[in-house]
């Protein structure tokens, strides 16, 4: 053994913490925030992961407004007021899908084994990841609304209405993320997670009131569109942005959020704990 090796061993021995001096493990909230901090650090180190929340929203907003605007409403100007809140919702919930995809990639790495062997509240690992994603959602939402404003979107509800709508949508996005979390825990590959998520996402966003008034749809479809959580959210957001927020619409969104978290949160944890 060389002298330096002995030195090193000496140093290592000196940094061991006796069992009675260890702090109590972080509580549920503190642990969740710490995992959220990890998500932020990842954004700092891999900023290109923000591509989907920056370029994608611009593309969606511009494309849908100019392609469908004329055809659906006769003029783009008239359509913008109606469409932007819808695009706002659609883009945000499409971005929530990436939460599941990232998680699928993340969990397969060795570091999750270590996280799961720590004496902290286990859901914190997932809650923290979803909290970190809120930053991404805020960024994406701001970009969509900014582009919308440039394109002529002038919400009647003013800043207050837009902010309330924003907060409501963030809450819904967080709740919906748990659905993708479950899927990402159930399937083996990222591609499979993507496929299944798209399969759910497409009807959810298109069979809604985002692009067209459901009045123009066949009656059997109208029924489905009305209970579609996306429609419920879009309605509440439109009302808030237009300055005519309805207590009942907002409550309904909150109920959907509670149901999503209540069902898919525990399911996520069930599958997460059994993931090997």
């Amino acid at each position, binding site marked *: *053994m060389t002298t330096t*090796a002995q030195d*090193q*061993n000496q*140093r*290592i*021995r*000196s*940094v*061991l*913490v*006796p*069992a009675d001096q*260890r*702090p*109590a*493990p*972080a509580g549920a909230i*503190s*642990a969740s925030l*710490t*995992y959220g*901090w*990890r998500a932020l*650090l*990842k954004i700092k*180190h*891999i900023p290109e992961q923000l591509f989907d929340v920056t370029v994608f929203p611009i593309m969606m907003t511009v494309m849908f407004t100019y392609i469908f605007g004329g055809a659906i409403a006769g003029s783009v100007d008239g359509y913008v007021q109606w469409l932007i809140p819808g695009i706002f919702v659609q883009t945000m919930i499409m971005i929530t899908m990436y939460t599941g995809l990232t998680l699928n990639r993340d969990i397969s*790495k*060795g*570091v999750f*084994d*270590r*996280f*799961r*062997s*720590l*004496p*902290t509240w286990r859901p914190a690992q997932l809650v923290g990841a979803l909290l970190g994603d809120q930053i991404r959602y805020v960024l994406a939402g701001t970009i969509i609304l900014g582009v919308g404003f440039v394109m002529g979107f002038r919400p009647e509800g003013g800043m207050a209405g837009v902010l309330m709508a924003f907060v409501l949508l963030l809450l819904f996005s967080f709740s919906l993320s748990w659905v993708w979390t479950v899927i990402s825990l159930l399937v*083996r590959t990222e591609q499979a997670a993507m496929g299944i998520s798209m399969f759910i996402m497409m009807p959810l966003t298109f069979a809604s009131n985002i692009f067209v008034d459901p009045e123009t749809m066949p009656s059997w479809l109208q029924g489905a569109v009305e209970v579609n959580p996306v429609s419920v959210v879009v309605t509440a957001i439109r009302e808030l942005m237009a300055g005519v927020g309805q207590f009942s619409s907002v409550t309904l969104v909150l109920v959907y959020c509670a149901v999503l978290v209540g069902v898919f949160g525990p399911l996520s944890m069930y599958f997460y704990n*059994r993931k*090997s």
Partner: protein
Amino acid sequence: MTVPAIETRGLVKRFGNTAAVDGIDLQIAQGGIYGVLGPNGAGKTTAIRMLATLLRPDAGEARVLGHDVFTEPKAIREKIALTGQFASLDEDLTGIENLMLLGRLLGYNSREAKVRGMTLLDAFGLTDAAGRQVKKYSGGMRRRLDIAGSLIVTPQLMFLDEPTTGIDPRSRNQVWDIIRTLVEGGTTILLTTQHLEEADQLADRIAVIDTGKVIAEGTPGQLKAQVGTGALKVRVAEATRREEAAEILGRTLLAEVIRESDPAALTVRLEDESRAASALIALQDSAIAVETFALGQPSLDEVFLALTGHKTVHEAPDGETADAQEEAA
């Protein structure tokens, strides 16, 4: 006395139709290093994952530091640390960020976690790499950081899953030194390895695992007594004197001498390595110049052959077994 570090009875884990762990009984006392030796796919990682409360056993009992893995996983997690086979680190984050993350989760505040992290990095000779992303670390650095991460608070029991797989010999020796230091500090270590040499160097007791079962258990000395110490390899300076040397070795060691294809080389299967010295002296007395005189450990293959009567089956690594399980689920 204190409770055992690990106690299992009939521990079973199945993935689909295959039992990765097929009824393992272990009794591991606190203190010292316990080695679990076996080839890829023997069930080492699966067993560790069950004991570290990452995987729920399908049958059997297991207690870690006196706590039941089924009913008291949290109590176990408070006392253990796990260093996985593939570095249990976030490769996108820097060294200090990894340690701060673990420190905060273990209850330090942000500032304390940073101080603790820097102290550990310093002790492990990683201060210069503190701000570098872990993906840019060498294999040896990763291992050291990984172990540092397990020491944020000193665990009572530490699982080290193949700690030296994939790192160079110099880093391996460093890791061995670190492991020995930790044991002196009072931590019990459960280590898995594919190399008899590693188990022999470090472990106080060894369990040999094959296809999910413990096929032998004991001190390194006891196991070696079952297997034979290994092989003595001799290369004489002049090939013409090989026959003479073979005769001397056979007589002194009372063992079969194998003549290698190299005309100057001989191999002797040894039962008792303490006789090797007398063989060297006997060669010297006959004035036979020796170029190489090396006492080799039996390889894992030889151990397996001796213990099971069959060669090691190189199955899929444990990671792939886990995939098979997902497929079945």
